[in-house]
C-alpha cells in the first residue's frame, strides 16, 4: 500500500520510494529511507499534508508526495 493510504496512528515499514534525484536525496536526509518505520501522526483537514514520524524526527509532507512511497503496514 501507499503511505498516503495510512490512517492516523498507523505504523508501517517503508518498502520502496518511487522517486529519484534531488527529491529522493531530500527524503533520505530527512531520514525517510527504505526499511525504516514510519508512523502517521496527523494530517490536515483537506488531506493535503501529513505529518509522519521517522526515527526521532517529525516530518511534514504532501499527500501528493506520499503517493510515491510504498509501505507495508505493521
Amino acid at each position, binding site marked *: 500500500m501507499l503511505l498516503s493510504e495510512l490512517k492516523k496512528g498507523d505504523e508501517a515499514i517503508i518498502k520502496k520510494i518511487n522517486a529519484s534525484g534531488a527529491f529522493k536525496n531530500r527524503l*533520505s*536526509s530527512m531520514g525517510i529511507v527504505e526499511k525504516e518505520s514510519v508512523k502517521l*501522526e*496527523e494530517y*490536515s483537514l*483537506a488531506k493535503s*499534508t501529513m505529518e509522519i514520524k521517522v526515527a526521532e524526527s517529525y*516530518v511534514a*509532507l*504532501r499527500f501528493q508526495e506520499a503517493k510515491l512511497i510504498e509501505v507495508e503496514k505493521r
Partner: protein
Amino acid sequence: MQKLTIALAGQPNVGKSSLINAISSSRLKVGNFSGVTVDKTEVTFKWCDEVSCSNYEMSIIDLPGAYSLSDYTIEEKVAKKFIQSDEYDLIVNVVDATNLQRNLLFTAELLESGKKVVVALNMIDEADKEGIKIDEKLLSEILGVTCIKTSASEKSGIDELKSAIIAAYKNDEYTSKVKYSDHIEEEIAKIVDFFKEKKYQKDISHRILAIKLLKEDSETYKMMHDEPIWIELLPLIRASLEHIYIHSDSKDIEQIFRDEHFAFAKGAKMEAMEISSMRAKNFTQKIDNILINKFLGIPIFLFLMWGLFQLTFTLGAIPVDMIDEFFTSIGVASKGVFGEGVLGSLIGDGIVPGVGAVVMFLPNIIILFIGIALLETTGYMSRVAFLLDGFFHRFGLHGKSFIPLVTGFGCSVPAYMAARTLKNEQERLITLFIIGFMSCGARLPVYVLFVGAFFSQENAGSILFLIYITGALFGLVAAKVLKIFVFKGENEPFVMEMPKYRLPSLKLIWHTVYSQAKSYLKKAGTFILAASMLVWFASNYPKDEALTSQYQVQIEHAANPEIEIELQNELKKISLENSYLGKTGHALEPFFRPLGFDWKMSVAIGTGLAAKEVVVSTMGVLYSLGEDVTEEDQGLMEKIKTEIPFASAISFIVFVMIYLPCLAASMVFVREAGSWKYLWYLFLFTTTTAWIMSFLVYRAVLIL
C-alpha cells in the same frame, strides 16, 4: 597567539547559534533567517596542556543549517561550498542529541570530507529529560572523532568542547573517516594500494581520493583526467564499481553511498544510544495534538494572529501618547529657541512632526516584532506552514512561503531575503511578488491614523486585523493570477521538518527585536529626517512674497480675531496650493480623482514611494495648521475626519495596502528577484491592482 578557524556546521534547529553564544559568551545576534549570511565570530581564550599554556584566537564561522551537503537549498549550497573549501582548520559538528540518527547522517557526510571533526552532542539536557542516554565515549570510538556532550542553555560542556577542539587541532594524527560496508572498503583498499604502489602524491589523502573516484565526483574526475596515472587507474575504478554494483544490487552510486551513510548513522545510534524510559508522549506531541489538529489548528492560528494585532493596537497605544506629548513639547520648544523664522519652521513644522510621527509608532512596531520573533523561534512557523500548505498550494504558493510572508508583516526587507528558503524559482518569484501585500510595520502608522479617525476605539484592533487579513487575501488571489498567467511550471515538493517546540531564550528575542527596533529608529533619524525636510521645503516654497504681504495687510486690519484666523488659514491654504508640493499634487490629482483622493492624499501616496512612514509625516505637514501635528494628535485625526470623506479614506487604506513597498525594500526585491525588469513588473502589477481595487472599494462604499 595561535589562530584557528572553525567551521560550525549542523542541521537546522540544533542550537548552533546558541552554542556560539555560549562559547563566545559575547552579545551577538542569533538566528539568521535569511539563511545565507555566513557569520563570523572571534573568540580569544587561554588553553593549557601538560607542558605550557598558550593563547588562542578562534574564528568561528557559523554556517547556515543544512540537512545534507547538497545543492537542494541555498543554505545547503553555501554550507557545502564552505565545507569543501580550505578556509578553515576544523569542523565542529553540532548535533541534536535528541535526534541522533538523522543528525549523524549529516555527520557522516562531514566525516567523509576528511577534515578534522569534533562533534558537539548539543541539547544534552533535553535528551536527559526525554530519557535518552548517550555513551559519548563509545560514540567517539565508532565515529573515530571526539564527541562532547554540551548544553548551550545550561552552559555545560563548553570548556570540554574548547579543549577537544585544541587537542584535535594540535594532533596531526587526528583524522576522520566513515567506515563503509566491507565490500566497499575492499574496493577502496584496492585503489589506495594502487596509489601506494605507484607512489602517487596528491594534496589529499589516498583514501579520500579513492572514495571521491568511487562516488563519481565530477570535479575529481576532471582533475585526475590530466594525470598520467589515469590510464592505469581507469580500468581499476571500472572493475571496482562493477563489484560494488553487484553487491548493492543497484547502479545508483549516489544512492549506494547514501545507504552507506544511513547504515553508518543508524548503526552508531543503535550502539551508543539507549532510551531508558519510554515516555508515551513528549511535550511537543502534546502541544501538537491541539495546534495542528485538523479542526482546531487554523482557528487557533487565526486567533493568535488576531490577538497579536489587538495587542499591537491597544498595548502599543499606551506609550504612544507619552511619545506624542514629548515630541509636541519639543516642537513648541524648538520654535521658542529658533524663533518663528525659517529655521524654527523647518525644525518645528518639518523635522519634529515628521520624525516624531514615525518614532511614535515604535511601541506598536516593537510589539509586532516580538510577536513575529516568537513565531519564528518557537517552531510554530513550521506548524502553520503544515496547516496552510494545502490552501497555499492551490494558489501557486508553497507552505514554506508562509515564513517570508509572515516576516513581511514586520518588514519587507528581511521577508524578501527569507524567500530564499524556497527552492523552486517560480514559487520563489510568486512569493517575492506578493510579499508587498503583507502590510509591513511601516504601513501601520497609516492604518492607525485612519482607523483611529473613522472607527471607535473598541473596534480599532479588529479593523486593523481585518486590514491585514484582506491584504493577505489579495496577495493570495494575486499569487493565483501570477501562477496562471506568468509563472507557470512545476512545483517544489513539500518536505519539511517539524522541529521541537522550544521556548527561545529572552536574550535571543531581545537581540532580534532590539536590532530591528534600532534599524527602525535609525531610519527615522536619517531617511525620514531627510524626507521630512524635503516635504517641508516642497510645501513651503516657492514663497509668494506679494501674496503674503497682501494678506498680512488684511490680517492687520481685520475687524475681529475670528476673521484674522480665517484670513491666516486662507493664506496658508493658498500658499500650500502654490507650493512645489501643491503643484505636484494637483498634477497627480486627475489620476487619483476616480479613487476619491484629494491632492494632499495624492501627494502623500507619491512621497510614500520613498517609505511608507512618510505618508503619515507628509499628511502631518500638509494637514497641519502650523502647529505640531501627529497622528494620535486629535487635531490631525479630527482634521482628517472632517476633510476626508469616509469612502475616500477606505479607498486610501486599500491603495496603501497594495501599492509598491518602500525604496529600500524595492532595492532588495531587485537583488532577490535577480533582475531590474522584475521591479518594473512589480511596479506595474501593484499600482494597477491598487488602483483597480481602490476604485472598486470607493464605488462600493459610495453606494452603501
